C-alpha cells in the first residue's frame, strides 16, 4: 500500500500543520503542560548513573522552572551526587512566541565541583533555538575552565559548540509526551561537541499540580574516533509540582 504519495501525503501535511497551529493556540490559552506554558514547576529527580571512570552513583537532582509571563523563564538546577561531584547552574531563557512555536535564547552559567578528582569546573553556555510541538532545536557556544584544587595551571576550553535536537511524539499540551534527544549537554553536564549524549524522555501530568517524568541517557565514547563504545548510562525518575 502506497500511503505517503500524492494527495494523501499533502492532506496529512495540512492536518499536521493545522494541528501544530491549534496546539500553539491552545497553549496560549494556558492549557498546555509542555514548554509553551508559564507554569512554575519544582521537580525532584533521583537518578542512578554509571560511567566507566566514576563507577555507579546516585544523584539527587532538584530543578525549578520560574517563568515571567510567556517571554522569559528561569531554570535553576542543583545536583548532589554520591560520586562526590556536585553541580549548580542557572538558565535564563528569553522567549519570542511566534505564530507557530517560539524562538528562544539561553544563557547558562554553570559550576561543578568534581571533589573526587579535586577539580573545579566553571562553564558558560550561550545559545539560541526554535521549538514547536514536535521539535526543539538549539545551537550555541560554551566555554569551560578546569581548575585543579591545588593550582599548578588551569585549562581553558573556549571553543566548544553545544547543540540539542529533541523530537516529541505528541503536541505539548497533551497530558503525556515522549521525546528522543541527541545533544552534548543535559541538565547537569556540558560535554565537548564531539561527545554526544542520546536521551529518551517521557512526561505525564497526573494531575493539574503533579507531573511525573522519566529519562534514560546513554553516553557512548569514541564516536568521532570511529571506534565507538559504551561509556556510561543514567536513568532518572522525577516528580514535579506545578505551583501556579
Amino acid at each position, binding site marked *: 500500500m502506497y500511503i505517503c504519495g500524492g494527495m494523501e501525503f499533502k492532506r496529512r501535511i495540512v492536518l499536521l500543520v493545522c494541528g501544530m497551529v491549534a496546539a500553539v493556540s491552545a497553549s496560549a490559552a494556558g492549557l498546555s503542560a509542555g514548554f509553551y506554558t508559564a507554569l512554575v514547576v519544582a521537580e525532584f529527580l533521583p537518578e542512578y548513573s554509571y560511567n566507566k571512570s566514576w563507577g555507579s552513583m546516585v544523584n539527587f537532582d532538584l530543578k525549578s522552572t520560574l517563568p515571567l509571563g510567556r517571554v522569559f523563564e528561569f531554570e535553576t538546577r542543583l545536583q548532589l551526587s554520591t560520586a562526590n561531584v556536585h553541580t549548580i547552574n542557572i538558565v535564563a531563557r528569553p522567549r519570542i512566541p511566534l505564530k507557530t512555536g517560539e524562538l528562544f535564547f539561553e544563557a547558562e552559567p554553570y559550576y561543578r565541583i568534581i571533589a573526587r578528582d579535586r577539580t573545579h569546573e566553571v562553564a558558560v553556555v550561550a545559545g539560541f533555538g526554535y521549538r514547536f510541538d514536535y521539535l526543539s532545536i538549539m545551537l550555541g557556544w560554551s566555554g569551560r575552565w578546569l581548575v585543579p584544587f591545588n593550582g599548578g595551571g588551569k585549562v581553558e576550553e573556549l571553543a566548544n559548540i553545544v547543540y540539542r535536537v529533541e523530537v516529541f511524539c505528541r503536541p505539548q499540551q497533551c497530558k503525556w509526551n515522549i521525546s528522543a534527544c541527541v545533544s552534548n549537554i543535559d541538565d547537569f553536564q556540558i560535554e*565537548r561537541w564531539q561527545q554526544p549524549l542520546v536521551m529518551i524522555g517521557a512526561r505525564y501530568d497526573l494531575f493539574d499540580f503533579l507531573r511525573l517524568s522519566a529519562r534514560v541517557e546513554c553516553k557512548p565514547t569514541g564516536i568521532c574516533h570511529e571506534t*565507538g*563504545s559504551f*561509556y556510561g548510562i543514567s536513568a532518572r525518575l522525577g516528580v514535579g509540582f506545578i505551583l501556579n
Partner: protein
Amino acid sequence: MLVKRIFILFGVMVAVMLTGCDRNDIPGIFNGTSPHANERFTASMEWNAAHGYATLRVDDEYKVYVASDSHIEEGKDANLKRFVLAYKADKDCPFAIHLGDMINIRNVHSLFEQDLALEPEGYVKGSDTIFTVAGNHDLFFNQWGEFLKYRHTSTFYVETLSKTSGKKLDFYIFIDSGSGTLGTEQTEWLRQMLAERSQMGYRHIIICTHTHFFEVDMSQGTTSCYALEETTTLTSMFSKYNVSLVLTGHNHHFKENLYGNVRYLTLDALKDDASNAAYLILEVGAGLAYSENKLN
C-alpha cells in the same frame, strides 16, 4: 515518487556508510570494529606476561625522538622514513616513541614495519628500538590483530637505568587510548602502576598515549578526546602521582598545557601532507626539555 526517491537515496547512503572506504571505518562510529578497550588490554597483558617489560641502560642524559600520527600509506611515508633515519643516526637516542595513528588505510601495518627497518649510512646498531601505542586509525577495519602481529602490545612500561651507576632513572608508561577511553581494567592497572612506581625514586614518570586530554581549540575539527569524567579522573591521577610529562598525539597540532603541575604535550602530526609536520626531540636528564623538528 518523491518519497520513493528519498528512500532509495537513504538506502544508498546507508550502504555506503556500512561499507565505508579504505580510510574511514564508518561502522566503527557506532561500534568499534576492533575489540574494545578491555579486550585489547587483556591481549596486551598476555604478551607482556609472556615476554616481560623492557629495561634499558642509558646515559644519565639522553634524547628520545617522539612522533605521532604518521598516517602512512603507499607513497605517503616520506616523513616516517625521515624520522626513522633521524633517530637511528642520533647516538644520544637510545629509543624512539610513536604515539599511534601509524597508518591511514587498510593493510599497511607491514609497510610501517618496512620503514622501521631503514638504516642510515654508516649505522651502528643500537638506537633501533621504537615503542608504539595504538591510535584509532590503527584499529580501523578490525586491524587490532594486525597491530598485535607487528607491534605485540599497546599497554606496557619501559624503565631506564643509569648505564654507569645502575640507578633508576625514568619510568615510561604506554597506554592504549585508541578508542577514546582507557576502559575500566586499563585505568585500574594504570592507577596501581602509578601508585607503586611513584614511590620508587624515578627522576621522571612519563605517560605516552595517543588521545589528547584537552580540547583547547578546534584545530582538528571532529577529533575528539575523552569523556569529561575520564579527563578529570586521569589528569587528577597524574597530578596525584607526580607525573612529569604526558605525551599525546591525535590532534595533529602542537599544544602545551600545564595542568595540575603536570605538563601535557600534544604533538604535531608526522604525516606527509601536513603543513605543520614535525617530530619532537625530548632531552631527558635531571630536567626535561624539548624541541620540535619541522619537516615541511
